[in-house]
């Protein structure tokens, strides 16, 4: 898990960036009673051994899917989303170094949890799914924070 793959994740400024746009983003979510990340406490059941793989999968989920499907016109919000997206890109690179040392193994638990999240996403129209996932960034960031106790700023 991530304990063996400790990476320097400066989560604090990402949380700050998200807090500044959270209300606006969540207000745009047309399906308030539906969730993508927190269905049946998906993330909370992830064991330390699977944290690295799950972090890698969720970073990819946001970088390759969510940020792409979301089109933002407001410059203030665009700047914050850009800050988060580029920080996730940096975190992916850091995790990739870890992977090269073969400490980021993916077991079925992480793979299945990731599949649930993608399936939840695909049940919605792409833009709605993207805005909802952006609104749930605090769920992911809190989970990263909890699982990176040793390294956050």
């Amino acid at each position, binding site marked *: 898990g991530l304990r063996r793959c400790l990476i*320097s994740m400066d989560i604090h400024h990402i949380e700050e960036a998200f807090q500044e746009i959270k209300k606006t983003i969540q207000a745009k979510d047309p399906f308030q009673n539906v969730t993508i990340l927190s269905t049946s406490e998906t993330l909370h059941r992830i064991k330390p051994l699977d944290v690295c793989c799950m972090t890698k999968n969720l970073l990819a989920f946001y*970088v390759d899917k969510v*940020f792409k499907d979301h089109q933002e016109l407001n*410059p203030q919000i*665009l*700047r914050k989303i*850009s*800050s988060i997206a*580029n920080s996730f*890109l940096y975190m992916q690179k850091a995790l990739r170094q870890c992977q090269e040392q073969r400490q980021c193994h993916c077991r079925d638990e992480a793979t299945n949890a990731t599949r649930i999240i993608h399936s939840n996403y695909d049940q919605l129209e792409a833009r709605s799914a993207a805005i909802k996932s952006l609104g749930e960034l605090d769920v992911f960031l809190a989970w990263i924070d909890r699982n990176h106790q040793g390294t956050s700023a």
Partner: protein
Amino acid sequence: VAILPAPQNLSVQSTNMKHLLMWSPVIVPGEIIYYFVEYQGEYESLYMSHIWIPSSWCSPTEGPECDITDDVTATVPYNLRVRATVGAQTSAWSTLQHPFNRNSTVLTPPVMEVTKDGFHLVIKLEDLGPQFEFLVAYWRREPGAKEHVKVVKSRGIPVHLGTMEPGAAYCVKVRTFVKAIGRHSPFSQAECVKVQGETLPLTL
């Protein structure tokens, strides 16, 4: 109608995680030139290359420089571009030749103030912002003295390092560490203070 020339000689000067984009001014006699700065992080250039984001402070700006510190918020390469406008005229974009990454910032030895408060060795460090930690090394100035190290995260407020012995001299040096880029500055020059009175064994 003369075409408005694009700004030239773009460069970034970055010191202690403050990043300043600069360029040569465009001159049109009798006119005020406004500049617009935009940026693209690696994410945008990889996945959304058509997306350029207006700089937080320089869309527009009058001077031939722009503080992009609040825009460059991740340790990835950033593309930067500038164009000039006067009235309805707009120049072409000029783009920074090489993407800028904040991990290239110049880290300078921090400014410190070493003082005595009675027998207490106290240090005050400049406030360089939330991304900076300070590694403070201090020792008693005598052969073979042990070097003590303290990591200081608080900024701009006095920090107690230790209790000194009468008649002894103590020295301090400090450097910064920026976790976001995983680099530290060189050490500052050592500064020493001496406590009045007789010399006794060290009790630090």
